[in-house]
């Protein structure tokens, strides 16, 4: 009996989005005097060589409400502040300042939020952000972006730098793999199609959810079910047309996200489907209505909380049954 050994998997490049952000921001700040980096003692910029932009790096300490208000004052004075904190602190602790000082005034503040979703891992529920997308997408004027890998982080960062209003950029903590090559480049407000199939549509946001959706689509294909995969890197403004098309062309939509089910990507997709009156079922793969189950690292928590390919596949099978 011959043994067929699988080829070892090609190691995909793993980079932490927040390190990409740091490097790109240093470059942007050197080239444009309007850019100011406001830090809240995240440690991300320790030892960073800012060069001539050094006066425009300001560590304001551990005080997130003040951080957002200061950013608004700077932005009103003609600067473009990049504000660094963790996602949950931006979305909940500092929410009123984000809402009133930044969003209401439609100011060009870039809130760069690390530790999105469950990426804070064993740091626990104090540091998990399972509400930030819901919170940020309800704010008028806010653009909400979730890059799925390092390359998209750089791309969205550069593209969003030119937007006139506020931006919430959700990043993770650790390194994540690059998406498979060959996809069309990300464009703010346009879903990125990673795979085409006519039976079901998987819509995902963030590094692990998008990879999970791709894995699920591979397994489904092996069983003869073809699924489209959309990377919904822009939560707001949402690509409604892509959702309507998916609802019309395929027999069901499954969303995948590192977020509580309430209010996140899945809710946003369901809103569009319902409002358009397209008859298409929507199922959400997200963290259930509880504080994240289990303790441990990021990947473990994703597994424990059902953000995995098997959950997606089960939903698709039931939808098509």
């Amino acid at each position, binding site marked *: 009996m011959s043994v067929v050994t699988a080829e070892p998997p090609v190691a995909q490049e793993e980079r932490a989005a927040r390190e990409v952000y740091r490097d790109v921001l240093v470059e942007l700040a050197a080239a444009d005097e309007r850019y100011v980096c406001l830090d809240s003692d995240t440690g991300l910029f320790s030892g960073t060589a800012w060069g001539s932009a050094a006066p425009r790096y300001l560590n304001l300490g551990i005080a997130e409400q003040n951080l957002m208000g*200061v950013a608004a004052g700077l932005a009103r*004075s003609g600067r473009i502040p990049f504000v660094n904190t963790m996602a949950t602190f931006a979305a909940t602790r500092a929410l009123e300042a984000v809402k009133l000082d930044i969003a209401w005034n439609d100011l060009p503040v870039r809130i760069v939020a690390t530790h999105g979703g469950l990426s804070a891992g064993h740091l626990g529920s104090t540091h998990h952000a399972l509400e930030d997308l819901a919170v940020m997408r309800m704010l008028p004027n806010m653009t909400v972006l979730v890059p799925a890998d390092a390359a998209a982080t750089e791309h969205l960062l550069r593209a969003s730098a030119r937007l006139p209003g506020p931006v919430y950029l959700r990043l993770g903590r650790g390194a994540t793999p690059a998406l498979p090559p060959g996809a069309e480049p990300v464009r703010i407000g346009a879903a990125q199609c990673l795979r085409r199939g006519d039976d079901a549509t998987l819509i995902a946001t963030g590094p692990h959810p998008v990879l999970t959706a791709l894995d699920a689509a591979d397994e489904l294909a092996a069983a003869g079910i073809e699924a489209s995969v959309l990377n919904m890197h822009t939560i707001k403004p949402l690509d409604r047309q892509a959702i309507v098309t998916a609802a019309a062309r395929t027999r069901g939509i499954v969303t995948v996200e590192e977020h509580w089910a309430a209010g996140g990507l899945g809710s946003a997709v369901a809103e569009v489907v319902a409002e358009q009156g397209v008859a298409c079922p929507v199922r959400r793969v997200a963290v259930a209505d509880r504080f994240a189950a289990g303790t441990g690292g990021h990947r473990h928590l994703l597994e424990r909380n059902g953000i995995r390919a098997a959950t997606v596949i089960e939903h698709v099978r039931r939808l098509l049954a």
Partner: protein
Amino acid sequence: MSEDHARRARELIVQMCANPEGGHLGGSMSLVEILVTLYRDVMRIDPRRPSDPDRDILLLSKGHGAIGLYAALAERGFFPEELLASYGAPDSMFTAHPNPAVPGVEMPTGSLGHGLPLGVGFALAARLDGSDRRCFVVLGDGELQEGSVWEAAMAAGAKGLDRLVAIVDRNGLQISGDTEDTVGLEPLANRWRAFGWTVREVDGHDTSQLREALSDVPHTPGRPTVLLARTVKGKGLPYIEGQARSHYVKLTERGHRRARAALLRGERNSGEQTSGERTRGERTRTETT
């Protein structure tokens, strides 16, 4: 001279409180000399060019003093006084908290504790620009119970923002009564000093004291300045001065007439009726001014 401007601003405030919506009377009357002195004698502003990039900035962090701000802006000539007649009407730009659609209003405020963080941002921007423009933030004393004020105070002290000036309208009252009976603020001067600020205490209704204290900012190079301005809530209407119930008042027609008369004649201790309640007794808290 400034007294006439202050009296005119008070007349405008009283007029707005005679609207069916009513207004934050007490905490606007306590602000009058502070705002009039800033706009008349201290700030580098041009009412015809409210967006001049080199202007000094004023943020009314105690946003419920909006009618005081509108009155001071109108009195200074940012817009015609007649426009204030729309206060309280549907879709009027004169909302109960400062609306940036009003010429001269820099930022919307109203939720307490936002002004000083914004002020730190304006001051940092001025420093980065190499500009000597100043930022004045007017706070309520009850507002100082908000933690974000002290986050900003700490940051301003640490960053040495000596062109940032906080002015506390120390009228001693919040909705439920005396600040010291609620969550006390004293020793207030020491608290600011401990955060790295230079403190001046003035009579907030004495325009010459205000002018003197505000004209030579920064008082200490490398340190932000705070003025603790002792004021009287409801100042100018003796029958409600120093009373917490002056916080929000809807003046009846009769009340409006009496208030105008009080402003004109300095009438004291006359009866006054507001929509919700009747004055109980004639006890007023008088402060030396």
